[in-house]
């Protein structure tokens, strides 16, 4: 389960931005991916991959799962990476600094995990560019609930 899923039938569409969901927990990443793709509707779907937990299914973050997920959803239009907390944030930041483990055009998005994931997958599936996808996800911070 922590290996991640690729959702969407967009393999033949080179223009879609990919979305990677990195959580401390495999089931959380998988569920948020399922929810975001479900809410994105039935049309063309951007590639989404979950990278949660450690390779043995425990809580934590795996650099390898993240890098593999990013490569799986990379269609050349960029990859938006959303993270939840703690080591998920730090691991992606450290990978970005490394420079060669993530695909070119991968970007860490500063957004709330669930709401940002829905916004990112919906906009990416609509064919938006990486900058629009990240902006939509970041805007999710602006929606106050109380």
């Amino acid at each position, binding site marked *: 389960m922590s290996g991640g899923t690729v959702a969407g039938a967009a393999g033949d569409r080179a223009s879609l931005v990919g979305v990677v969901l990195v959580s401390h927990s495999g089931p959380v990443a998988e569920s948020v991916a399922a929810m975001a793709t479900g809410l994105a509707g039935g049309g063309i779907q951007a590639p989404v991959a979950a990278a949660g937990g450690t390779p043995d299914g425990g809580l934590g973050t795996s650099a390898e799962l993240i890098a593999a997920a990013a490569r799986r959803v990379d269609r050349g239009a960029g990859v938006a990476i959303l993270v939840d907390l703690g080591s998920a944030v730090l691991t992606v*930041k450290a990978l970005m600094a490394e420079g060669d483990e993530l695909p070119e055009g991968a970007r860490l998005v500063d957004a709330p995990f669930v709401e940002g994931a829905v916004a990112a997958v919906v906009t990416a599936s609509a064919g938006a560019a990486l900058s629009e996808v990240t902006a939509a996800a970041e805007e999710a911070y602006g929606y106050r609930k109380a």
Partner: protein
Amino acid sequence: MSETALDAAFFIRWMTAAAASIDREADRLTELDSPIGDADHGSNMQRGFAAVRKLLETAAPQTPGAVLTAAGRQLISTVGGASGPLYGTLLRRAGKVLGDAERVTPAELNAALAAGVDAVAQLGGAAPGDKTMLDALVPAVGAGAAFDAAAAAAAEGALATVPLQARKGRASYLGERSIGHQDPGATSSALLFAALPEAAK
């Protein structure tokens, strides 16, 4: 000792000594991580440094910089918790600063580690006094190029985290309840610096 140039073999000894000491202290690190963390620091660090030791046994990088860069990369890949990217960044940045010199002086190592500690602070967004590994790392690199002094400063810094209230990471959710516990990350940082004079023997 302070004028002796350090070669790749010294850096491999350092990492190997650090791995052995983390292996010995893993249970204690996890114990420290139980009241204020998620009780995985010892096993995470143990896994990461065992992987570093294994990598250095098989790959044996040829320069001090290459040893630290490879070790840092391995920690990011294998630790699984926040300490992976943090320690990985420390060693990798230090390794990059050392470049491809075949030998470096303790002063050059000190400067490289100081750059690594800055990178850790930037990555984690923490500062000294936040009850993190920085409370051991900052005094350690501030103590200068002498290994014994750096090790002592790191150990003292780790002890000094006991009365602090955590302001970063999971422990920060506990607020005042984090007071009275020694920070596990500062403790493992002290182990890393304690391995330096050991490697120089």
